C-alpha cells in the first residue's frame, strides 16, 4: 500500500483512535511518574486533529500538509509538554516529506525529522527515559531496514517494532529529563508515558498502512495497541 497523503490522514485518525484506547494506560503510567495528564492531554490533542481533518473543505494535497495540521493542532490543544514536543516532531517531519508518496528513504527521513524535533525541543538524548527512547531505536531500525532494501511499509513496521521495544526498555531507567526526573530513583520501574505514546503513534502509522478502513485487521497487529481494543476493528 502506498504511503501517500491518504495514508497520512489515516495515520492521524488511527493515532486518535489508538491513543483514545490507550488513554487509561497512559494516564496510569503518567500518574506513577508524572502528573497524570499525558493520556488526557494527548487524547484531547488527537481528537482535535480529527475534528480539524473532518472540517477540511478540500483534501490535503501533500503528506506534509497533513503532518503540519497535526503539528499545529497538537501545539494548540494538548496543553502540556507533549504539545510542543510532538508538535515540533510533526513539523520537522513535514519539512522532509515533500514527496507525493514515501519510498523507504522517505520513511527514514520522516522518522529522522521527528526524532530531531523531539530531541532538539526537549534537549534529550537516549537513555533519559523520554520519548527519545522510542524514536531513536525506531530511526535506527528504519535505517537498517531501508539499507537492506525493505519496502516502505516494512521500514515502518521495523520502526514501530523498535519503538515498542524502546518504550518497554524505559521501565528500569531513572528519569533525568522532564517531569519524571523530579522523582529521581523512584521513577525507575515504570515505563515512560511519552515513550509509550510514541510507540503507539508509530504503531498507528503501520496500522494505517496495512489495515485501511473497512478492511479486516492484518496479521501483524501491534503489541501496544492490542490491549483493550475490542471494537477497534
Amino acid at each position, binding site marked *: 500500500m502506498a504511503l501517500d497523503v491518504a495514508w497520512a490522514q489515516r495515520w492521524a485518525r488511527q493515532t486518535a483512535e489508538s491513543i483514545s484506547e490507550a488513554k487509561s494506560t497512559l494516564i496510569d503510567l503518567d500518574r506513577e511518574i508524572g502528573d497524570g495528564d499525558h493520556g488526557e492531554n494527548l487524547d484531547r490533542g488527537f481528537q482535535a486533529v480529527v475534528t480539524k481533518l473532518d472540517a477540511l473543505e478540500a483534501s490535503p494535497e501533500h503528506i506534509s500538509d497533513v503532518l503540519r495540521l497535526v503539528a499545529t493542532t497538537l*501545539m*494548540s490543544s*494538548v*496543553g502540556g509538554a507533549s*504539545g*510542543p*514536543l510532538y*508538535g*515540533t516532531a510533526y513539523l520537522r517531519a513535514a519539512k522532509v516529506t515533500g514527496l507525493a508518496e514515501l519510498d523507504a528513504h522517505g520513511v527514514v527521513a520522516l522518522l529522522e525529522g521527528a526524532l530531531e524535533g523531539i530531541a532538539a*525541543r526537549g534537549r534529550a538524548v537516549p537513555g533519559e527515559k523520554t520519548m527519545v527512547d522510542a524514536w531513536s531505536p525506531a530511526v535506527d531500525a528504519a535505517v537498517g531496514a531501508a539499507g537492506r532494501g525493505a519496502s516502505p511499509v516494512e521500514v515502518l513496521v521495523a520502526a514501530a517494532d523498535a519503538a515498542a521495544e524502546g518504550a518497554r526498555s524505559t521501565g528500569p531507567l531513572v528519569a533525568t529529563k522532564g517531569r519524571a526526573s523530579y522523582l529521581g530513583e523512584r521513577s525507575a520501574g515504570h515505563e515512560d508515558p511519552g515513550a509509550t505514546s510514541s510507540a503507539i503513534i508509530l504503531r498507528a502509522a503501520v496500522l494505517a498502512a496495512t489495515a485501511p478502513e473497512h478492511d479486516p485487521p492484518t496479521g501483524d497487529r501491534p503489541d501496544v495497541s492490542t490491549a483493550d481494543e475490542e471494537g477497534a476493528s
Partner: protein
Amino acid sequence: MTAPVGIVLVSHSQALAAGVVDLAAQMAPDVLIVPAAGTDDGGLGTGFDRVLAGVERALGECEEVLVLADLGSAVLMAESVLDALGEDRAARVRLADAPFVEGTVAAAVTAHGGAGLVEVLASAEAAGGTFARAGRGRAADGAPAGSGAPADGSGSTGAGHERGARRARLRNPLGLHARPAAVLARSVAAFDARVAIDGANAASVLELMKLGVVGGHEVEIRAEGPQAEEALDMVVAAIEGGFGEAPPLDARLQ
C-alpha cells in the same frame, strides 16, 4: 508612552500570569506586559495560539519583546513559538532563563527606564540570584551597567565627578516595599550617577527590596558621578516625602 521593550508572560495558569502582570505593572506602569497563559477552555496548560498571539501583540506595540515562562512545558511552548516567528521577527524577541516572578519584576523595572532588550534580558536573568545571595559586582537585577553601588570611600573618581553621602529616615510605615523601591530605582536610573542605599544598588529594585528597610529606619545614601548631588537630593526628598503614602512618621511611629 509605552517602553520600547514589552514583556510576554507564558504561564500554565491565567491567574498566575494575571497576578504577575498586576505586580509588575504597579512598578513599571509604562511597560506593556501581556499574559499568554492557560488553555482555551480556561484550564491549566499552555497553547501555541495563545502564546503566539501574545508575542505578536507585543511585537506590534513594542520594538522588542522579552518572554518569560513559568515551568518546563511553558518554556518548550515559548521556544516553539519563537521558532515559528521567522527570522526577522524572532530577532526582536528573547526568551529569558529567569524566575517567573522576580525575573518579570526586574525586567519590567529595567524596561520602564527605556532600556533595550539585551539589558532587560540581563536584568531578568540576574534576578534569580538576588534573594539567595547579595549580588557582587554586578547589579542583582541587571540595573544599567555602570550604575552599580559606588565604592564606600575608596577608589578615585574621574574628572568632573562628584561624590556625596546623606542620611534620611523612612517615613512611610512599610518602608522600601515593592512600589517605593521601584519608584526609587526608576528615578535613580534617570541620573548620571551611581547611587547606593545602605550599600545596595539603588537602581536595582530587587536589591532595595531585599534591604527590608521599614518605616522609622535611617538609611545612608551615597552617590558618585556627575549628577551625584541631584541624585542625592531626589532620593532624600523621595524618602522623606514618604513616597506619597506616608501618614506623618511622628503620628505612626515612636
